[in-house]
């Protein structure tokens, strides 16, 4: 079953003189138009982790806002769980964490989760049990009775994650869940997302931190300036072929090094070590032999496959040039 499906989703922001946008009511004076999203179609299958990737201003957040009913699409439609957007029965089964979440600072952590649980119409006893469970999951049990005013950015992100899971959702939509977190926090969020998948939930999340996405996504959609550049499985998008070998050697004379450098596509010299990059396996093997013959030491040899980051830079650059 397709949990999320969009059909030619487009969004044009029209800013009026007051700098606000009221949907249908627009002041036509000195309007400024911004195409935030152009004809986006994709679908998310049940049980997968789907990443919406792209640099800032790519349209990731706009897509999520339209799916959550915060903004309305200018053209195109979308469905969640096979139902049109705005269906309350669907919203009961969805969890959402906005970007850089900020919550009621006059509430305590526990009260906040209680309030949101009430909005789901959850019975009190089940709600309280669920809150304990979630505070434990996101590691905020110690801060449950502290006001949100005193929460750090990371704690806000965690309590936001907790509120998105209150209703035991089948689909979790997370907008930049890892922004503002330290490396440890990022790993914890990653683990939570993987756990959600294990429990059979579908996760749709956006990120510009590609290394985080690379590790957990089943499929990704890459957006740039409001357009879909590519979509597919991670291993389909990235070529599995090793495209370069990185050799690090040390203890060689300068004149001996020149022989090694001949076949290398790139050379980086550090204090006593040199990193040589070869594009062919044979060249790398030849270089190792030469280095050992001349009494050098091999520190490491690393075959490299393409990372999402490199793919991204390559494609976005191409896309940018095409448009320029």
């Amino acid at each position: 079953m397709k949990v999320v499906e969009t059909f030619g989703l487009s969004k044009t922001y029209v800013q009026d003189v007051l700098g606000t946008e009221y949907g249908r009511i627009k002041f036509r004076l000195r309007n400024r138009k911004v195409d935030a999203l152009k004809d986006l179609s994709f679908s998310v299958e049940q049980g997968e982790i789907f990443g919406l990737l792209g640099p800032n201003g790519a349209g990731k957040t706009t897509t999520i806002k339209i799916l959550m009913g915060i903004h309305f699409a200018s053209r195109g439609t979308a469905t969640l769980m096979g139902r049109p957007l705005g269906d309350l029965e669907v919203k009961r089964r969805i969890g959402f964490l906005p970007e850089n979440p900020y919550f009621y600072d006059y509430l305590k952590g526990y009260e906040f989760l209680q309030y949101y649980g009430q909005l789901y119409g959850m019975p009190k006893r089940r709600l309280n049990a669920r809150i304990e469970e979630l505070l434990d999951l996101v590691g905020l049990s110690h801060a449950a009775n502290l006001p949100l005013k005193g929460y750090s950015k990371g704690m806000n992100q965690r309590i936001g994650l907790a509120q998105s899971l209150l209703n035991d959702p089948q689909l979790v939509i997370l907008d930049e869940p890892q922004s503002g977190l330290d490396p440890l926090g990022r790993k914890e969020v990653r683990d939570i997302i993987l756990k959600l998948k294990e429990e059979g939930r579908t996760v749709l999340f956006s990120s510009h931190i590609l290394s985080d996405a690379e590790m957990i996504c089943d499929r990704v959609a890459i957006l740039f300036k409001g357009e879909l550049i590519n979509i597919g499985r991670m291993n389909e998008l990235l070529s599995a072929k090793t495209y370069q070998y990185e050799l690090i050697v040390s203890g060689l004379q300068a004149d001996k090094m020149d022989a090694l450098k001949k076949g290398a596509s790139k050379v980086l010299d550090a204090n006593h070590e040199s990193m040589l990059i070869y594009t062919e396996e044979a060249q790398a093997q030849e270089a190792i032999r030469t280095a050992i013959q001349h009494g050098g030491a091999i520190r490491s040899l690393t075959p490299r496959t393409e990372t999402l980051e490199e793919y991204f830079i390559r494609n976005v650059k191409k896309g940018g040039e095409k448009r320029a």
Partner: protein
Amino acid sequence: MSDNATLPTLEKLEVASWRDKIFPLALWAIILGLLFRPLLWNDWLQIKAAINPAALSYSWKLLGMDILCVGIVFVVLYWLILGRIGFIALNTFREAVRNRILYFILFFAIVLMMASGVVKELAISASTRIVTDIGLTSISFFGLMAAVFAGISLVYNELERKTIYTIVSKPVHRYQFLLGKYFGLLLTIYVIVAIMSLFFFLVFNYQANTSDEVLEKVLYATNTSGQMQMVDHPGLVKAVFLLKAVVKSFGQSVGNLFGFATGAVSPNLLVAIALIGLRLMIVTAIAVFFSSFSTPALSAVFTVMLFMAGTLNEDILRFGMHLRETAIKEAAGAAIPLAAYIKVNLAYLAALVVPNLDSLDVNSEILHGDKVNVWRFSVLYAFSYTGIVLLGAILIFRKRNFK
């Protein structure tokens, strides 16, 4: 829609029972029911008072009517709160309670009312009038301040801080959010009005309980030879009496607060305060309306301006009538020129659009001791005007992209 048939059916989820909703409902019903009680039973109380003043005391019949009154409010609210409105309202109330600025408003109002007890010493006569005047004026003024301030900031905060994002993603309709905010604000403002009224009644009852005539009776006793004589230890007697008077006045004031015309407070005064409640209901709706699409500064200006225009509503109407008469006179039998015709109708239109707060103001009648007549149509008008303004806010809010 034809494709509805192809939509998958989602299994039923467990939701909260009515027991979880009963507490916010009951709180609402009691506050609203009792606040508007004098308005609903005013005529009845006045007729009863005219026939037999002693019958004004609380009776079982009256209790039955109160239960009925709270019950009606309860049923209306239950219909409203079936969604998520109640929880949003209670959270709004909680936000207001934890917001310190409202305490300043309350503090100034109470200080002013307490001061009215001192100011009346400076007046040559009619001390009750001064207490009534200052009391009613400060309740309406500070109530207006609270309505404008809270009404605008509490809605705007949700939009500005983007908490609306997560609210919208919950199974909550946008109109439920807006109505929840409105009712939460109204609850806050009515609690503030109730606290101010309590202090107003306290000053009022205390004045009556410790008037010169009463004090005289306490401090002077008639001796066996029929002469007035001061009691022993007059200072102590007076102090004890005043202390008792405070406790008695407080008891009476609490009774007044729940709509009972005990002590020196007449049903008319209770009606005046209930009408302030109605006026604030309109003003809060206007504040919510503007803040549903405008910036806080503009909303505040618009709301206050509409409030001021509203208190002059009947003058606008009179101005229109004056224009019409002048135009007819100047035309001298010929057709009225188009410019004058437009002018007259613009004035009438303004009087129609601007809320008619004039008809909900009986303060001057009370001050002049005139008979208070609340036109039932005005009460109906207050509710329908509020409804229309809220409907407008919902229509704008429904299709709005949140920043």
